[in-house]
């Protein structure tokens, strides 16, 4: 199994020191998540060779060593692609020439081609444009294309969508998902936006002040109570669901989560497709018996599997739903009054579930 091996020590810009010892899977999208100033960009710069870590650091992808005691491979010899937050297109070249710049310098064998990247990133109409006439979203798509055309073994993305408006951001996310599926190219994706991370990532690396806090599969990390993630205000469980059917009379779509039905606003996906659903902990409440006359559509039988105090007033519950988990944030008073015990069969009432593609698909 190929892996990105990191043993990194590097002085950051704002006082902290990045100190990291880990192995990351060299497949799929790994999100590097953490508050600003936690060393995310420093990590990417070290991997790209744009910043020198301490001499005892080791960076290697599969059999290739990029950094080790006595070894420093310069940036331009590392087979990485880097998409910066500020696109960094060459201003004296047009879009086509920016793409050609990468093609002309890539190491053989180049496996990614222009006629693959251009349609995937919807660049067809932009090729002859000067780069200063592009919108922020268009620039970023060109930058992604340019990085891909250098045929990297690893694609680094440093908050590539941070400066984009919502529509451009969704378009880029769609493109990245398609590319990740099609190209089998491992990506390291820095973000401080948990929504973006939930949409894209397979794997998660949590950083804080230069230290590794947690790493693992996104779906698993999001459903655990002992991570920093679940203690954030916007904590949410992420589940995979398959599209079952559409109810055109009420404009709803029915999904199935481990066999249980979940209704969301009508979505343009055909039955059978697998999608991620993000369910915020604050939108889930529990009850002992199934309410008969509630306005809430989604009431699912679950088993209480864990309880964790988050502050003096509130607790977080982990509810198992088949093989997946929901999170619920309720008051400690409710736990006492409902006499909740681990293992209890209860009902989860879900006020909203967002399917991770469009923003306004709540039910």
């Amino acid at each position, binding site marked *: 199994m190929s892996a990105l091996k990191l043993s990194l020590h590097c002085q950051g810009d704002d006082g902290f020191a990045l100190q990291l010892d880990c192995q990351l899977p060299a497949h799929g999208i790994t999100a590097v998540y953490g508050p600003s100033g936690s060393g995310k960009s420093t990590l990417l710069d070290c991997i790209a060779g744009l910043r020198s870590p301490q001499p005892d650091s080791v960076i290697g992808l599969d059999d290739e060593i990029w950094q080790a005691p006595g070894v420093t491979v310069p*940036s*331009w010899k590392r087979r990485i692609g880097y998409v910066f937050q*500020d696109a960094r297109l060459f201003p004296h070249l047009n879009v086509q020439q920016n793409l050609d*710049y990468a093609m002309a310098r890539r190491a053989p064998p180049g496996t990614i081609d222009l006629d693959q990247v251009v349609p995937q990133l919807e660049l067809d109409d932009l090729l002859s444009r000067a780069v200063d006439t592009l919108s922020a979203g268009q620039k970023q798509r060109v930058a992604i294309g340019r990085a891909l055309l250098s045929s990297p073994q690893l694609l680094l993305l440093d908050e590539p969508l941070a400066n984009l408006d919502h529509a451009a951001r969704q378009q880029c996310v769609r493109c990245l998902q398609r590319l990740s599926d099609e190209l089998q190219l491992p990506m390291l994706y820095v973000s401080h936006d948990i929504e973006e991370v939930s949409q894209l990532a397979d794997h998660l690396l949590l950083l804080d002040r230069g230290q590794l806090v947690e790493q693992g599969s996104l779906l698993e990390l999001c459903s655990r109570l002992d991570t920093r993630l679940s203690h954030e205000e916007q904590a949410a469980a992420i589940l995979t669901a398959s599209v079952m059917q559409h109810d055109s009379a009420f404009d709803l779509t029915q999904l199935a989560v481990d066999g249980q039905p979940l209704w969301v606003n009508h979505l343009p996906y055909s039955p059978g497709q697998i999608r991620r659903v993000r369910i915020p902990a604050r939108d889930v409440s529990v009850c002992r018996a199934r309410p008969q006359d509630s306005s809430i559509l989604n009431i699912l039988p679950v088993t209480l599997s864990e309880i964790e105090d988050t502050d003096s007033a509130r607790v977080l519950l982990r509810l198992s739903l088949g093989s997946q988990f929901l999170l619920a944030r309720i008051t400690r008073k409710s736990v006492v009054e409902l006499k909740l015990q681990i293992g209890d069969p209860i009902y989860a009432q879900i006020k909203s579930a967002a399917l991770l593609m469009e923003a306004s698909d709540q039910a």
Partner: protein
Amino acid sequence: MSLNHAELEAIYLTIALASITTVLLLILSTPLAWWLSRRRSTVSATVEAIVAMPLILPPTVLGFYLLLMFTPDTALGRLWQQLTGTQLAFSFSALVIGSVVYSLPFVVQPLQAAFQRIPQGLLQAAATLGASPLDQFRSIVLPLARRSFITAASLGFAHTVGEFGVVLMIGGNIPGETRVLSIALYDSVESLQFGDAHRLAAGLVMFSFVLLFLLYRYDRQSGWRIRA
């Protein structure tokens, strides 16, 4: 209004001196300006100060020291004598060396300013796309600084045409060898040939004005300036 043989010779010599000096300056200044544009240290500040000195010093001071260096009893003078069999002082080659020193800031500073305007981020992006440092310079820096190269070359050329003090000190007044336009003009005034002096002076004024006018027209945005 026609030019006599001596004047034509002076014009030819001046153009040759300015052209050779400009070419040498571009070769020398490009790496120097690049280095200065990427460094902030005591060493680089020292080098910057040395490069800018000809802007402040009376040319005669520069000429005086250069003359001392060029005499056959210094190491440089001796070496030159051994290699070429001729004396360095009072030769065309001495003028070229003097002019390079004298006009250095006029070429280095516009280039340095242009290089400083090129974002480090673009070079990093080029590096991640597989461009070696030399390739980055050729494919990113040179095209983006193209206008400033023209500015720098023009300023270096014009400033060399206009030099007088340094030439007088290290070149003397040998027709066909070191007698450039500004010296010829000085000669005419000395010998009270005001008609000749007018022709040469007016010609130099026209040349300078047209060149600077074209430069300002051509390079409005980049705002080159000479800092002393």
